[in-house]
């Protein structure tokens, strides 16, 4: 499947989960394809990075369910900030642990999972739909009932996949991509490398298969597809590009004209080509 065919599977008003974390392993080529589409009124669930900022800049976001939005070495995302400060989006702001708890509840087909997290904070004041539940045991403790975050679609970027959706994530941290896949009705994958099943790498590589192929509805081959975010161990995040992206909150037209009007391949050319991306050193934290 290509980017357009993946985006054609989405519709207005859907709840879309985006894998990765901050400026790390985001399915950016799919996000850019959404930005070029007519889709609107999306609810986005994300450990947010430039995926959130770019979607905000294109007025695709009705509501954001999040714990943070950050570009890692650039702590804040200028486009997300602008959207919040101009009151352009609704938010459900949660502890980042509550986000994975909500996804986990959805993944297990449960209405909620209990936690103490949120107690004593404005997270509960600002999200009055989150209710408490009493422990049915002798402790009778009052706990937060974190509701399931059910997703219509998840979008993930992985290092390698075959055409059946046997994916492999090699980065040191697989983040919560598995939970995004399990919480969603359909998951679409972009991958650095698309190989035959015989070339997945056997037992040693299968350890990096973080969730089963039955959860995957479509695969898009997208070399460099995480740019400007990182895709360890292939490449790091493009700090210079993230600076250009950040500065574009002031005048988005030029950035859009330079990088966002063409196809995925034209984007790669516009930011310096495959060789340049694949040679971006991994960040050290």
């Amino acid at each position: 499947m290509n980017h357009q065919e993946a985006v054609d599977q989405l519709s207005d008003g859907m709840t879309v989960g985006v894998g990765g974390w901050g400026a790390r392993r985001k399915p950016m080529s799919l996000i850019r394809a959404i930005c070029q589409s007519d889709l609107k009124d999306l609810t986005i669930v994300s450990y947010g990075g430039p995926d959130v900022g770019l979607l905000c800049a294109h007025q695709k976001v009705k509501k954001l369910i999040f714990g943070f939005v950050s570009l890692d070495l650039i702590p804040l995302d200028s486009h997300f900030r602008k959207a919040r400060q101009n009151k352009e989006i609704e938010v459900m702001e949660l502890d980042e642990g509550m986000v994975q708890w909500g996804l986990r509840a959805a993944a297990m087909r449960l209405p909620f999972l209990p936690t103490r997290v949120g107690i004593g904070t404005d997270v509960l004041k600002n999200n009055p739909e989150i209710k408490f539940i009493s422990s049915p045991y002798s402790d009778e403790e009052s706990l937060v009932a974190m509701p399931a975050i059910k997703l219509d679609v998840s979008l993930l970027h992985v290092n390698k996949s075959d055409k059946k959706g046997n994916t492999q994530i090699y980065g040191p941290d697989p983040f919560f991509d598995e939970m995004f896949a399990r919480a969603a009705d359909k998951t679409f994958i972009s991958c650095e490398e698309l190989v035959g099943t015989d070339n997945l790498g056997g037992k040693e590589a299968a350890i990096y298969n973080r969730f089963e192929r039955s959860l995957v509805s479509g695969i898009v081959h997208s070399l460099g597809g995480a740019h400007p975010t990182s895709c360890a161990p292939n490449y790091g995040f493009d700090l210079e590009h993230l600076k250009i992206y950040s500065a574009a909150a002031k005048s988005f037209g030029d950035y859009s004209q330079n990088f966002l009007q063409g196809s995925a391949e034209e984007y790669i050319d516009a930011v310096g080509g495959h060789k340049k991306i694949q040679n971006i050193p991994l960040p050290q934290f």
Partner: protein
Amino acid sequence: MTDSISLAETCISASAKVWKDDGEILATGIGLIPRLAVGLAKLTTNPDLMMTDGEAFLISNPVPMGPRDSSQDSIEGYMTYSRVFKNIWSGFRHAMVTPSQIDCYGQTNISSIGSYDQPKVQLLGVRGFPGNFISHKNSIFIPNHSTKVFVEGEVDMVSGMGYKNKKSDDLMPNIVAVITNLGVFDFNGPNNQLQMLSLHSGVSKEEVIEKTGFEFTIKSEDQTLAPTEEELHFIRETLDPKGLRNSIFGD
């Protein structure tokens, strides 16, 4: 030697002491000074601490700040974000963080400034603050002690629970220490009021009062202990040989 001790070094030394009685738990320092302080604690007062390389691996020896040959990292274990949450919620962690606002109740904010509906300044989002402050020990590092940080009234968006909303002795924050560019504090005053434990060299009590938006207890006006020769050696030669710490206060 004493004359040349920088404010950053004083803060790193004072901050490192917060982990000394923690035993074998995960220590996390978010930001340059807290991260150097974790490393110093591991090299001096508490070698049992677990710490990460800043990403997903547990390491035996602190990694130096700045670019390094990471193939030399002494990796001993694995700590993905998924595992971090499991660790946090079971309480075996002590983090040092830098909120944008803190109030007299020990409530902290890293989410947004101004009205929640339409923030004047959108910051990071609550991140892990709600889970951290209800689950495990935290200390706080503030590089710019002022009434903008130590706010009058309450913080704009309560991200980390304070003592105001404590449910029980088991369900309340445990803020071990607050280290700022002016001095060292904790929340062990009467009714968990902020209390001053020491002042850094050259800082007056009056300056702290002027720059704090609420009343606090003064337990001591002693001068903060200077880093020892051993601590200075570790800070300068092992943990931060490139001197990145000097960028924090420009000293």
